[in-house]
């Protein structure tokens, strides 16, 4: 049964994938790339979302983007051309080049390290089956903890 499911799933994915392959049309690419660029007028807004009245740059830049897409440039080439013309701050997120890779790698890397560390820590604690020494609690503290237990349990 399990094998049957696996075989049924594969063609389904292929069909669905093929059905959506042509979906990256010009408008989708324009929208996608417009969200990967910043307006350079100083408003700190995503290019396609820049809406401040009388912006001296966004209309021109969006025109350039449309022209680049119409010219048949690939996404990376479009982004590289904008970076070349306006500098690295025009990209809404750093590209995966040289030092910029660090930006992308560090947060998930630390999360994975943290998860691994936590697993190891818990495992180490579990292996130490020696009972913890009793803590010399004063009666008031014990009473308080009992009250907390009562209040937080039903």
């Amino acid at each position: 049964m399990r094998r049957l499911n696996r075989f049924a799933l594969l063609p389904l994915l292929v069909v669905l994938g093929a059905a959506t392959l042509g979906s990256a049309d010009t408008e989708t690419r324009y929208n996608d790339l417009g969200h990967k660029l910043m307006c350079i007028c100083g408003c700190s807004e995503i290019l396609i979302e820049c809406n401040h009245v009388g912006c001296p740059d966004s209309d021109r830049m969006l025109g350039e983007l449309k022209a680049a897409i119409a010219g048949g440039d690939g996404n990376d080439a479009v982004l590289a051309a904008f970076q070349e013309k306006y500098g690295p701050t025009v990209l809404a997120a750093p590209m995966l080049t040289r030092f910029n890779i660090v930006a992308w790698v560090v947060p998930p890397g630390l999360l994975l390290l943290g998860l691994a560390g936590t697993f190891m820590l818990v495992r180490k604690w579990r292996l130490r089956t020696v009972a913890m020494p009793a803590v010399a609690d004063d009666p008031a503290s014990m009473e308080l903890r009992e009250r907390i237990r009562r209040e937080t349990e039903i």
Partner: protein
Amino acid sequence: MPAFGSFSLLIALVLSGYNLLAGTVALRQLAVGRRGWISPERLAETARRAGIASFFATGCAAFALVWAAFTNDFSVAYITEHSNRALPAAYKFAALWSGQEGSLLLWAFLLSAYGFVLRVRHKVDVKLTAYASTILAGIQVFFLLLVNVAATPFSLVTGAIPADGNGLNPLLQYPEMVIHPPMLYLGYVGFSVPFAFALGALMMRYPGEKWIHITRRWTMVTWLFLTVGIFLGMHWAYSVLGWGGYWGWDPVENASVMPWLTGTAFLHSVMMQEKRGMMKSWNVWLIFSTFMLAILGTLLTRSGLVSSVHAFAQSAIGTWFWVFLVIVLAVCLFTYILNRDHLKSEHKLESLVSRESSFLFNNLVLLAACFTVLWGTLFPVLSEYVQGNRVTVSAPFYNRVAVPIGVFLLFLTGIGPLLAWRSTSVRSIAKNFRLPAIVGLVAAIAIVPLGVHPWTIFTTDEQGAFYAWVTLAMSAFVITAIFAEFWRGGKVIQQKSGQNLLTSMVQLTRRNTRRYGGYIVHFGIVLIFIGISGQAFNQSHEQAMNYKQTFKLGPYTIECLDYSQDSNPNYDTEFALLNVYRGGHLVTRLSPELRIYAASQQPSTIVANHSTLAWDLYIIYAGKDPATGQPVIKAFLNPLVAWIWIGLIVTILGTLIALAPNISAAIAAQRHRVAVAPEVVAAGKAGD
């Protein structure tokens, strides 16, 4: 009035300084058992009273600034810069926090207000409160020094007094701006109180967990204020900025979310200390970090270190915040190193599959999310230092890095409550997980025909649909898990008491407000996630429109009925009148505006929004087509946005329930006029 305000601030500084010094001396004498010519108890009492008085002095200064705004006192430079005669009264009040100096004064005032409550309620624990009061006084001194020396709100204009002011930033002239900043500040400032208690408890090697019990309500109220503040800011951005979104990952937004994340982690992990005496060091550092992140956020956005759309908040006071932050870190480190042996855990984790470990992972993920936000905010500075050029780190980065972390957190929200303390058996896991997992799977399949196509992640660059699919399926899983908890507990009470299931669930909640209030908060957060997931399917259309011209967006047809202009003393406005049809029927009439404010000559869009549970039709007046003079209308169809605001309301409700005291089983039964057998008291344990 400016003189009165300045004098009040000076008095407040002196009083807070006295509170700090006298409090420190008194506590030191008490600690070493030495007595001076005034007994330490009396000295501590004078310090406490000085702290109380500082609240009134700071309040007088805040009043003086508001008064100056209301009376159009343009001799005060701050009022000239942030108000004008035509400004409506409510916004004159908002002038208090619309600029650097005023917002710092508000910070100092709220801090003294929190301090006032803490000092008045000192009998809850006189010695611990004395420590907390002294630490708070130290923070007060910093902020009062700022407003007395570096960013004085009562500076006078040089030369002739202007006849009118520059007016309030048009973006701030919106009703929510009257409550959003105070809420946010109540959140930021409020974390000073649990911070002060935690540091004080550590300094005096306070026995047991009472300090956590004392600060629990403070922390929850503060968390609630910060949550409401953040979401009001989102709603304001959505309603005013007119770009169709509510969160732009701007450094100021990031600054508010970082302490929220660590504060949320603290609220969870603190339960492990209360119940099992675990994670004491972790908790202390979580609350230290939360406070320091609130300060760091202010530093980042006000020092100009990172660029932000909130440019009005930038100035040269960054150095002050750097120095303060270093002092706070040094004090925390020093105190921790001296007293770390006091923070030894009484128990250790017994199983990887337990409530404790779920809290541990929840904390880890929340901290990872916080680090990601901090990392993204600071990376441009790091890049400039290493590569010699700045890069931009905006929405695409966070969407790729932070969103998966958020989805993982949502998953933990679902599984955490299903696990028992200490250890959970495989049988129990199978029993508790079966229904939520089935519902999650069914939801994952059912939403595909509705247009949520996760496989687009393999065919395009777009990841939104995939994450939306995961989020919606996971949300179904979590909501089922939460309702199953209520259902199980309610069922037990129902069987014993004979009440209907709904009444039984209400009683269940009232008997353990903290736990079930917490579940309601989780439910609210899930609704917020559902609302955010809709962002992956936003549509937009922009068009210059002539009379009677129409365009279609989703199920709606938008028709331009008219366009015109108007003016009043505060602003000139251009607007369009649009009919919105669905299925041939008129649904609503919308009127997006573009205002030009007279005093500042700054434009501002007024969004017209038709909101339903399914989607928002969000329309802005983007200006006039220079060639034809016709209005350019930009329309967005934003799915599920309303669920974000509904989720916020549920979250507020859940937090308020969690704050309410428990009602005992006997009283609950008595109120329902049902004779309760003794075992009913224990019945609810079935839900654990």
